[in-house]
């Protein structure tokens, strides 16, 4: 009854092509953004339930936003363009470390420390450049072979950030800490401000990604994904389509890496961007839904919430599990869920959502 597009006539091409063609969707998105931008910070400011402590904001919402951003990047490469990558963690690392280098200046080439916003964006651009380099093999090889090639990127950069001291400004411990987060004179240090900062990045980039994906370039990516030879015969240049997917994906993942390091971690070590992170991002994308922006959010939320759920629920029920058991249970749940979803619902949670929308359109008279 509520979710019905009857009577919403599209009288121009612009209206027909708009990003959310159904009015209820537009209202829903507007409400969501209002809650995220105004509601949550207000509640958190006045410490109203569920924001009594900063835990929810700092330990759940902030990583959720940043990992969603990374998942959007990974989704562009894997979900839209069909190029599997096991090196997303490394690209997050490149974004983080290059942003750090730009943010603290490079005296070797006479570069002064840049403002934080510029260094985060430059971190993303550096990741994009490296992404293009490691994307070049994708022109010759595909599928599993490409997975190993991206694995090479992962292990190579793990080593680079550990051993090449230039990236860590010769810090003896190998751990580095981010510069102060100052944006045009606005010092971001409280959890609410950090949340708002991450939210702005996520909103802007998610909108850009959504528009890219439904535009000409996104259609090219999907054509390459569905059948590259056919796409080539139709006049799509695989060189341009594949490398642009690598560039855009690495840029977004790099930005997410810079935010993860600067905003969420504050101080970090190379381990923060290991292969575990890559696999985690891959899982988010598969579970959430390959080839949807919404799926990136759903997947990131799910992957983050399961460990917390496992921590809280058994102890509430009076059977507390040891941390070891919890981490093993996590493994089992993620693994079996991946298999289950690949078999039963290859399009992930996002597909469930769109099925629900289909049903809602007819509800309560499904005929």
């Amino acid at each position: 009854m509520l979710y019905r597009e009857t009577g919403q006539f599209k009288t121009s091409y612009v209206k027909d092509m708009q990003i959310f063609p159904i009015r209820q969707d537009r209202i829903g998105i507007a409400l969501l953004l209002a809650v995220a931008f105004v509601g949550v910070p207000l509640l958190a400011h006045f410490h109203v339930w569920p924001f009594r402590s900063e835990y929810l904001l700092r330990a759940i919402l902030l990583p959720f936003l940043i990992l969603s951003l990374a998942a959007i990047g990974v989704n562009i490469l894997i979900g839209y363009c069909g190029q599997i990558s096991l090196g997303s963690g490394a690209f997050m690392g490149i974004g983080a470390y290059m942003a750090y280098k730009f943010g603290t200046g490079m005296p070797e080439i006479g570069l002064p420390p840049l403002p934080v916003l510029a260094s985060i964006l430059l971190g993303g651009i550096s990741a994009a450049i490296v992404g293009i380099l490691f994307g070049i093999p994708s022109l010759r090889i595909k599928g599993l072979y490409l997975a190993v090639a991206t694995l090479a990127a992962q292990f190579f950069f793990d080593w680079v950030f550990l051993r090449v001291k230039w990236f860590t400004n010769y810090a003896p411990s190998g751990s580095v800490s981010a510069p102060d987060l100052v944006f045009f004179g606005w010092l971001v240090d409280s959890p609410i401000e950090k949340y708002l900062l991450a939210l702005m990045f996520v909103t802007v980039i998610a909108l850009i990604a959504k528009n890219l994906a439904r535009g000409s370039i996104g259609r090219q990516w999907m054509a390459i994904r569905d059948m590259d030879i056919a796409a080539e015969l139709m006049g799509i240049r695989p060189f341009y389509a594949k490398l642009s997917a690598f560039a855009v994906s690495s840029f977004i993942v790099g930005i997410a890496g810079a935010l993860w390091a600067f905003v969420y971690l504050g101080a970090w070590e190379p381990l923060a961007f290991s292969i575990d992170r890559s696999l985690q991002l891959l899982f988010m994308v598969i579970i959430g839904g390959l080839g949807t922006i919404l799926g990136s959010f759903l997947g990131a939320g799910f992957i983050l919430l399961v460990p917390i759920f496992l921590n809280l629920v058994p102890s509430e029920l009076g059977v507390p599990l040891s941390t070891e058991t919890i981490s093993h249970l996590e493994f089992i749940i993620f693994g079996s869920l991946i298999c289950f979803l690949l078999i039963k619902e290859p399009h992930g949670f996002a597909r469930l959502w769109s099925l629900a929308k289909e049903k809602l359109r007819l509800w309560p008279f499904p005929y």
Partner: protein
Amino acid sequence: MSLLGPFIEVLIGGLLAGVLYSLVALGFVLIFKASGVFNFAQGAMVLVAGLALVRSLDFLAARGAPVWAAIALGLVFAALVMAVCAFAIEKWVLRPLLNQDGLTLFMATIGATFVLEGLAQMVFGSDVYPLRLFPTDVWIVLDGVFPGGILINKLDVWGGLIAGALVGGLAIFFQKTKTGRALRAVADDHAAAQSVGIPISWIWFVVWLVAGLVALVAATVWGTKLGVQFSITFLALKALPVLIIGGFTSVPGAIVGGLIVGAGEKIAEIYLGSHIGGGIEYWFAYVLALAVLLVRPQGLFGEKIIERI
């Protein structure tokens, strides 16, 4: 002369270490040949086999069983565990995904990896368990020729012998037995094999079982070298570049690729690593594989990849 001695020592050490990578890579090749599945779970299977073996050994030893009986029973138990794994993966992961594309199957095996790792550690424990099946002391050979001689780890030699025996055994199995021939038929063409009456799900079970047994063998050697522990799964990831270099479909390729990676990374570590910071063993194999991919995507021994529309 004084440089040649250490070089040969490094080379032999590297080659024999490479045999260990080959052992894991063999399991990948078997499954890839028979079902076209790129099995990310092979490393996890090594872990499962190793944990099952070492925990049952500990269990039996604690109850005072004689050593030979404990080892025999432990091996049987581990083999049974691998059979259960093979059955479960075939039934719940592969069969429902029949005729899906390679990428989907690959991601499904990543899922299976996590399940196996989680279950194995939950059931068998997640510490480092030492395994002592083979001697680990060293031989010193040729000390008349080179000053100080050349050190060779006995375990590595054992690993080499076992790998040789395994390849021989697998070759006989594939060429001479009825099941082996059926396996090769399935590898060539699923549908054609099915239409002449080869039961495909049984064949897949057999293949995963054989791969599981290869994983068990790999686990005995790896476990003796490093102790059975979680990080074995990461070392097993090195089998991926080995496969790229050797070719996905070739058993000899897995062996040669392993030797190249083993020797290459040790030599690179000693002669190149000292100049650029050390620890390059960590990525050398992958970058080597990347180079091979750009020049020869099918690997040294693999079948040429032909695109059909």
